[in-house]
């Protein structure tokens, strides 16, 4: 089993005893280069001579998914007949006798001890990514759910924005606006009204009532505050900007969807960059992303060129 020091990346590692916890047993290791002691789960669910075989299959799956291979084609590893015969007895392995290759079946649940190895964690991340992909594909087929997803995505974007405001020239900002948007509590205040801002934007874009079930409605609205925020953001002008062309309307939908995907990625707890990239790439094409980026640049220019009393940035953006 290839073990690498998580601190320095050295492969010069020695076994350093065992540790037992309530749920599982751990093998301790010590790095000969930097002296770091770390532990890995002790795999007991498969025979010791098959551990490396299983891990190699997981590694192949991760490598090939990283390289952008389709999930059904990824992870197939060639083995000799003896190993294939042994792998047949393991329920989470899939075997192609014709090509004499085997892989870990992505539809089966991995035993806990294998799932908690480095290979198992990355493999699980890809399985989660595939789950998110399936969810998004389903949502795209259902108009109601699709709209809800876009709304949730845009809401997430507005709720996580930093809201930087500044005056073009000193003293030009009306006092009423200043009191709200330069208030130390401005983030909380604006985020409170994010739902209304998104609703208003989508209502105009879709030319229909966008009331979507399941989204939290805002209660205790201070309409003065809301009007001031709208005025500071020049929300009407922003809506006008998006309404100017059909492409922009589609792009704002894409933006909402990207943020929704980001939310789903977070909900599933996907950490591996490759798995996150896989979801985004399959849903939004490279050219769509490029266009979206260009539109966001145009929006920045639009905001800075118009001589409003208040300038702002950092609200419409891509989740990195």
């Amino acid at each position, binding site marked *: 089993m290839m073990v690498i020091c998580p601190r320095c990346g*050295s492969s010069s590692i020695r076994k350093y005893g065992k540790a037992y916890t309530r749920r599982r047993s751990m093998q301790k290791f010590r790095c000969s280069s930097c002296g770091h002691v770390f532990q890995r789960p002790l795999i007991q669910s498969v025979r010791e001579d098959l551990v490396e075989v299983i891990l190699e299959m997981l590694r192949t799956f991760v490598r090939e998914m990283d390289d952008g291979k389709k999930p059904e084609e990824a992870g197939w590893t060639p083995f000799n007949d003896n190993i294939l015969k042994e792998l047949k007895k393991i329920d989470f392995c899939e075997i192609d006798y014709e090509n004499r290759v085997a892989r870990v079946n992505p539809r089966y649940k991995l035993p806990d001890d294998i799932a908690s190895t480095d*290979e198992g964690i990355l493999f699980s991340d890809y399985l989660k990514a595939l789950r998110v992909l399936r969810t998004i594909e389903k949502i795209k087929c259902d108009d109601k759910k699709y709209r809800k997803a876009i709304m949730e995505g845009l809401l997430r974007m507005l709720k996580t924005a930093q809201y*930087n405001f500044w005056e073009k020239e000193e003293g030009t900002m009306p006092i009423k606006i200043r009191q709200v948007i330069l208030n130390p509590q401005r983030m909380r205040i604006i985020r409170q009204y994010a739902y209304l801002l998104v609703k208003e934007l989508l209502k105009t874009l879709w030319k229909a009532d966008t009331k979507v079930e399941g989204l939290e409605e805002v209660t205790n609205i201070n309409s003065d505050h809301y009007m001031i925020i709208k005025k500071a953001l020049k929300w009407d002008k922003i809506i006008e900007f998006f309404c100017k062309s059909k492409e922009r309307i589609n792009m704002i939908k894409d933006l909402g969807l990207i943020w929704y995907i980001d939310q789903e990625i977070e909900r599933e707890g996907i950490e591996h960059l490759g798995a996150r*990239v896989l979801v985004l790439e399959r849903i939004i094409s490279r050219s769509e992303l490029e266009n979206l980026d260009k539109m966001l640049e145009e929006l920045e220019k639009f905001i800075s060129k118009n001589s409003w009393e208040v300038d702002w940035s950092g609200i419409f953006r891509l989740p990195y």
Partner: protein
Amino acid sequence: MVSSVYPTRSLREPVSPWRWPRRDYLLEREYRRGVPPFDRFPSVQDVVDAVLCPVAIVHKFYHGFRGALGGARGDGENIGVLFHEFIALLKTDIASGRRSPDQAWDLFYGFCSERGVSEESERNLREYVSYWLRRKRRSLDELWNRRPRIFFEIHVASIRVTFEVRGRRTRYPIHGRIDELDVTNKRIVERTIRGNESAENPPFLKDFQLWLLWKIITSIDRNTIPEIWRGENFEEYELFVETPYRDFRVEKDQPLFEEWAKDALTWISDISRSTRTILEAWRNRGHHNRPCRFGDTIEECSMAYIACYRVQRRYPERRAALSASFRSLYRALFNEQLWSHDLLLYQLTIMEQDPQLGNELRRLLMGRKIFPVEIERDLGGGRFILRVSNNDLRRTLHEILQDENFEFDIIFGSFCMGIRRRAFLDFRESNLDEGRVVVRVIPNIEISDTENAYLVRGGLLLREDPWFLKRVVQRALYRLEKWGLDREDRAQRHTTIRLIDTIFGPETLRARRFEEDER
């Protein structure tokens, strides 16, 4: 000899040309905010890292990592830096006649004790030095007899570094540091401890790094080169990568390197422009044809196990939410670095290399970020008396020194080509009313021909806005994001993990207020 003899991956097509800062931004007439409308002023190290892997640049820009190539491994002393510093000290001492080649080991032990080098590091360093000394004995004797002019740690910066690919020439800004410039023997040397005795080629990408430095130095306008080097024709200089075991001569005509450099700079521009490029960087990870794959990563890249394929911990469970909330901070901190550090690099380089904007920029920066001084006297032991002739500048410098630490960056020569050192002001011996400043320079330097120096305040360049701290914050955030525990029993008791899971978890997890409990 070329270290990397593989064919290249397809070149990245730039989304748009290099974004240079507009005049209004250079002259600081526009409010600094949001995503900067210009690209980073890349260092040679950035370009080399981008050639190694575009994902390394993502980690470098957004997560505050230093170099990817053979970069940080643990927090121990950097033997490579110590090795180079010692060789520089030894050669300087021999060339100036202070020490003979026979006294090399005395100097070594003195150097280690002065630097407080640990026993283990000293042992490692001694090994490299003994290899080097065995091989270089004759050249040290020659140094002792001929007393050539050698300069170490030369800072070079240019906005006119041009690369030609398929007949199309493109101009870029790059800055870097030359390890050794031997004016007598017409050589530029890049020193490293990487490589081994049997290596036939220079260490991976070191030849490219040296070639880039040569490209910078040859692109600098002759008028901006300090008098001491103005007569030199750097086009004719020979390039050498020096390891403890062997010297490798590097060819200057390198069409492959031109392609690599252009590809790397396109990645740098695209990644600093938009986070969208991170997706594409991942798909193009690895060197041009040394792909980086899980379990089979590029050996020389330190990012593989500390960033790309870092071990994931089971706890905290809400790490993904923590990571999502940090992402906007990474980008914001990167933007701040561009506004404070990279814009200043553009200003200083353009000030010297652009005759149209030069005077306006000089007026803007003088007395704020740079202070032109004349070297009045070399007191020896790295101490100099500097003179500030302009009365206004004297006053400003006096005011600044009232409430700040007396530490600067000093550049002997010009910003585009000069010897950069850290300078500490001796306040007791200085008389700022008369414009007389006494500084101690670290590491020591022998200057006889250069008369003018710029005192450039702060960190690398700017004291009042220490941009490098943003990188430290980025790194700390990234460490926290990736930190965790595997053992459930420990995680249950760990305050930080419980705090993260509570803050970033669903709202039902959050603690109730005291009044709510009372009710």
